[in-house]
């Protein structure tokens, strides 16, 4: 709002400046920015304020009354075992997906980047899952991991190993979802790491070679890894944010089951808000979710400042 007001005020001084020198009045800049400013306010800033306000009320969609509850929604959350279970499951998922996708992305990037032949082939192959429609591929994965007819269990059987009911076992459900997450994210991280690798100046490797560092793994630990430091941090945080937002696979494959073992934060919030229409407590969960994402983003933007784009 203050932007629009400042704009109107500025028109006057723009005219005054126009008398002295004919540079295009900055007024035009407001016209350029206006559509975005309107959308920013209507679809983002106001909703955030509203969600914040709702989190202190007992608002339910369709209900006539609304009353102020103060921090009741938050204290209720703090003692709500369902919420905590979703929170724990989400953290578990993040703890599996982030190391898995970051390490495999790094490994693939380093190996592929050193190749003389086939670099593009590998990049395309590993990137393919990133562009695929996750929901469709998730159903494929559910089939792959199927307890009786899934090829993964066929393989385990062929190797004489025990078979698993991945989607029926509360112990295995999060790892199974994490496999899908890692499968989709590894190629994306690989491309980010590749960009970081190409930014390492070649003469550093030459200097290392002159200094007698010539084994690939020595080179990796003395030059590549330290130089990839900022990229690695960036990839870790980006992956954490992506993993924190896990929703699609849960909504389609497990619906939080079995026995709530795959309840995640966003799925719980979704059910609360859009299935049970309890807006107040869903808003409180949203605020908790936003706080976590903002902390991660803050870390990320500090890195972005250093390397605006790769």
């Amino acid at each position, binding site marked *: 709002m203050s932007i629009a007001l400042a704009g109107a005020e500025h028109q006057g001084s723009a005219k005054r*400046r*126009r*008398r*002295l*020198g*004919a*540079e*295009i009045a900055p007024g035009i800049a407001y016209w350029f920015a206006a559509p975005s400013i309107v959308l920013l306010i209507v679809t983002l800033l106001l909703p955030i304020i509203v969600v914040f306000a709702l989190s202190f009320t007992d608002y339910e969609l369709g209900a006539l009354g609304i009353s102020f509850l103060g921090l009741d929604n938050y204290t209720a959350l703090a003692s709500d075992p369902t919420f905590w279970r979703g929170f724990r499951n989400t953290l578990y998922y993040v703890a599996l997906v982030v190391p898995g996708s970051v390490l495999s992305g790094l490994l693939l990037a380093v190996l592929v980047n050193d190749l003389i032949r086939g670099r593009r082939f590998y990049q395309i192959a590993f990137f393919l899952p990133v562009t695929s429609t996750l929901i469709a591929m998730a159903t494929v994965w559910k089939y792959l991991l199927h307890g009786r007819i899934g090829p993964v269990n066929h393989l385990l059987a062929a190797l004489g190993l025990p078979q698993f009911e991945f989607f029926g076992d509360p112990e295995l459900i999060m790892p199974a979802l994490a496999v899908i997450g890692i499968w989709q994210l590894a190629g994306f991280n690989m491309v980010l790491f590749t960009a970081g690798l190409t930014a390492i100046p070649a003469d550093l490797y030459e200097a290392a070679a002159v200094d007698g560092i010539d084994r690939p793994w020595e080179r990796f630990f003395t030059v590549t890894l330290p130089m990839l430091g900022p990229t690695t941090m960036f990839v870790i945080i980006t992956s954490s944010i992506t993993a924190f937002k896990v929703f699609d696979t849960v909504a389609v494959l497990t619906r939080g089951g079995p026995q709530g073992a795959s309840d995640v934060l966003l799925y719980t919030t979704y059910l609360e808000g859009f299935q049970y229409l309890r807006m107040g407590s869903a808003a409180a969960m949203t605020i908790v979710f936003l706080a976590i994402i903002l902390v991660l983003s803050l870390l990320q933007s500090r890195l972005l400042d250093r390397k605006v784009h790769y």
Partner: protein
Amino acid sequence: MTATVSIASIEKNFGGSRTLKGVSLEIEAGEFLTLIGPSGCGKSTLLRIIAGLIPQDGGSIAIDGQVVDDAPPKARDVAMVFQSYALYPHMTVFDNIATPLKVRRLPTLARLPVLGRWMPGLKAARAGVAEDVGKVAAQVEITSLLDRRPAQLSGGQRQRVALARAMVRQPRVFLMDEPLSNLDARLRVHMRGELAELHRRLGATFIYVTHDQVEAMTMSTRVALMMDGEIVQVAPPAELYANPSDIRVARFIGSPEINLFTAHAGPDGRIALGDEATPLRCDARGPVTLGLRPEALRIADRTTALTLKARLHRIENLGPDALLHLRHDQGGDQRATLRLPLAEIEALRRSGRLDAPLTIGADADAALLFGTDGKRLELRATGAARNDDLILQRAS
């Protein structure tokens, strides 16, 4: 197709610092005026204020007697050639040159991509644009490049396209912002000649910004030297060299730089250089600075009016002549440079005189005298001069 440009007390501040401090300048119709100065002196800013691309904070610009302070760039009838050429990267050479004409001669709708081609009744206007572009392209010899894009051109070719785009609408005033500084040395020499020729042929007013004194000296009708947001001196090139009004002008123009010595004006105005009395006199008293161009200095003989002691530091061979770099005790940075034909230096070397301390000097009429404030001081000859044909030097 030419116009006067009046610049009256132009002020410009950038972030608290005064970039232009009340600059005034009258530029005559058809003149080739060069704005020269070190980087950051405000010359490019002044050029953009004339063009209307940057608003001034004070003062006024008039073109052909009309104040244009309210006018947007396109209404000022000026064209500009940029150091980076500023060609539209996605357009062909033809479209680059045609753009200013299309904007003026075709309605907005007709300039829409694809759709615009189907606007009826503009055949004549389009043909006129094509004809004018063809003419200008022929003038700068780029007819064969009209279908290319800027990325496919060499630096020199881009330069010509930029010129053609400026020429095509026949503006009254051409503004040029260091147009040659991105070219290699050989091409630069060639383009200097072409620009001077172009100016003669078009008869338009040229305002040319450069930091290269050779460009300023070779092409201009007049040169305005700017320093720290002010014009220090405006004069024809030869005058600027021979008669600098300020020590900063003397130092900026001329390569190698002018030699400066600390001198002293006695109570009677008689100037002493170290212990040596000189035949020079001025109206000031106390410390003054004596300037001598490298080619004015020579190895002193009995007829030399101004003399001082120096030691040889190093010889720099330039081909036809050479520079002697000397050290002396007469203040300044204690260095002096002396330009002599190579043969003379060989003779000196053979005679062994270069190994001993040297006495160097110059004629009294070659001396330029500056006060402690840097302003030029008038010189008078005295009766007791060692050479009797001293010329009265007028300060400009």
